[in-house]
């Protein structure tokens, strides 16, 4: 593996570690200033010259949940071992160019890397000097920025789907819906410091310790049990027309005070909660476009649901979750599989609501095989083809 060449201004381990922290932060790990010091302390406690030990120590220290635990290895390699650059095929091209000039006899031994050299030659010579220029940031060369530049032609840029004023209404409708399902109280009364009712059972029990004198007054109240939302939005080809409204709707749900988790799916599933919550709209949009690779392709609803259940489901779902699926129900997968996935979902979540843009059409009937399979598991199947329809959802959700 090739070790990253750092800019000449980056002096010593502390500086590079700070760069690594910035790199992790950019990739969504919640690390702060204090962690930089902790990381250096942790390296002092192990054999820091041993790569595996350093990697493990930093992973244990810096990853806070299962998701970052799994992606830490890649992030570590990307920063310390130039993996981001290697993926671009530029890092090795520097010497590949020399090899390409060798006699033909050797060509077979270099195989495809020799061919890379011909194409990437100019780019590599430019990149090879970049790190030592001093003004470039080390983390700028790790592949993320380069990836955006080269690939976004083949992707649909969600930026143009996000920045219109009319989308605010969709967002506002979402905020209203989120508010309606947030304010719930438990039916059972529990011990509370400031409660409406006296808790006679507890008062009596406590009075026994004081010879039957009710000295401590315990109280009970109905604790708040706010509902959470998990929104799964279909961004496949058939949904393209609605995508801009639905994305605004998702953004409204996520930015409301209710705890919301948002996912996009087509043939793959990705979590977009953090990207949507980003206050920097432009950065949020580019993060989304990076994530929605393949946006506008086919759909695999059951597969995506399955992946959601197996991956994020354990954390995202509980007895107080409303799952909102935004999809037209046209999918390539087996309808039975969709039914099975929804049955599993139904066990773990409180309510499943399917918002279907087609349902607003006059003569629509859910005859598509997959919708037929899904219907028995839905608590509500509601239209969502216009802004008005979205606005009218508030009343429906209040009833759930």
């Amino acid at each position: 593996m090739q070790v990253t060449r750092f800019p000449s201004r980056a002096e010593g381990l502390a500086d590079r570690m700070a760069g690594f922290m910035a790199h992790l932060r950019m990739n969504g790990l919640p690390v702060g200033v204090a962690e930089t010091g902790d990381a250096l302390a942790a390296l002092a406690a192990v054999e820091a010259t041993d790569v595996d030990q350093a990697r493990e120590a930093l992973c244990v220290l810096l990853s806070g949940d299962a998701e970052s635990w799994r992606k830490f290895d890649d992030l570590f390699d990307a920063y310390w071992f130039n993996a981001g650059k290697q993926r671009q095929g530029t890092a090795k091209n520097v010497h590949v160019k020399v090899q390409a000039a060798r006699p033909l006899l050797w060509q077979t031994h270099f195989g495809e890397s020799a061919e890379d050299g011909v194409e990437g030659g100019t780019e590599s010579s430019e990149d090879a000097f970049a790190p030592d220029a001093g003004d470039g940031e080390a983390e700028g060369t790790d592949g993320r920025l380069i990836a955006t530049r080269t690939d976004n032609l083949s992707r649909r840029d969600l930026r143009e789907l996000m920045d219109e004023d009319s989308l605010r209404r969709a967002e506002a409708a979402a905020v209203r819906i989120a508010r309606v399902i947030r304010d719930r109280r438990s039916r059972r009364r529990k011990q509370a410091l400031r409660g409406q009712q006296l808790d006679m059972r507890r008062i009596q029990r406590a009075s026994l310790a004081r010879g039957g004198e009710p000295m401590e007054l315990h109280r009970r109240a109905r604790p708040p049990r706010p509902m959470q939302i998990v929104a799964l939005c279909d961004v496949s080809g058939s949904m393209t027309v609605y995508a801009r409204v639905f994305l605004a709707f998702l953004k409204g749900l996520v930015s409301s005070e209710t705890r919301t988790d948002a996912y996009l799916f087509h043939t793959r599933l990705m979590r977009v909660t953090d990207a949507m919550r980003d206050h920097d709209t432009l950065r949020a949009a580019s993060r989304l476009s990076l994530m929605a690779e393949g946006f506008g392709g086919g759909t695999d609803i059951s597969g995506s649901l399955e992946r959601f259940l197996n991956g994020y489901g354990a954390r995202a779902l509980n007895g107080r979750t409303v799952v909102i699926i935004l999809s037209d129900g046209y999918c390539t997968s087996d309808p039975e599989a969709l039914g099975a996935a929804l049955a599993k979902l139904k066990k773990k979540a409180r309510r499943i609501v399917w918002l279907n843009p087609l349902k607003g059409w006059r003569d629509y009937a859910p005859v598509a095989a997959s919708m037929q399979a899904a219907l028995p598991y839905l608590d509500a199947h509601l239209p969502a083809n216009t802004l008005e329809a979205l606005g009218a959802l508030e009343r429906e959700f209040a009833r759930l």
Partner: protein
Amino acid sequence: MSVNDVQSALAEEGYVADARLAMALHLAETLGRPLLLEGPAGVGKTEVAKAMAAVHETKLIRLQCYEGLDASHAIYEWNYQRQLLAIRASEAQGGLAEAALFGEDYLLKRPLLEAITQEQPPVLLIDEIDRADEEFEAYLLEVLSDFQITIPEVGTVEAVTRPMVILTANGTRELSDALRRRCLYAYVEYPDRETELAILRTRMPEMEGLLARQIVGVVQDLRREELEKAPGVAEMLDWAAALAGLGVNDLAQSPEAVQATLVCLLKTAADYDAAPREVMDRLIGKVA
């Protein structure tokens, strides 16, 4: 003590830890930070704490969390009955100083207070922290960062020694970011084939090689089936013990015993339906 020392010491106590878990334990000791373990049920999160206590030959203090856990169960409580008795008894002899009523004698130490008042640093296991309420989690943060507990009648109790704190969670509720940041983190996965075989060998050294390989193979494959509750390491060990108890030498030879002992592996009715006899025969055929 280096990382490898931790790993081999754990192995001596019968716990096979992978490199990352060993590193997590090593750092938790050297940096004095609590360690948060997550992972599916039955991968040995609780066992880690027991093994660590055994390695250091110290006490394991366990706090099992549940919904509604409050300070009087987690930290301390006054022994009111004894206080009342003392008052009654002393009335005959003409009164009792109030200060004496709130002394060590009348204080019931619960796990957290007990853990910070030990002479030799114990291992404090806070099991299934995600089951406790959020308020308790917030309180725990204070204890874990300062290692001191304030008792109004007595004053602040400073930690005599710093316990090694291990928290476990398996995703009943999302934990707060503050707690996650304060802790080191390790995700414990189901072990791979070799590791699981090593675990079985350590726990049941007298078991024959063929049977051990078959058991581990079947359990590993079973985890890949669509089950609601995949069998953990603990279930595997139970199953192995059951099979050994029945005197089975080869799984392929005794399908009845396999069916009868599946109660150790599968814990829901749906999983029973998902793993009928044909499926088990296929899995056994694959590893035989």
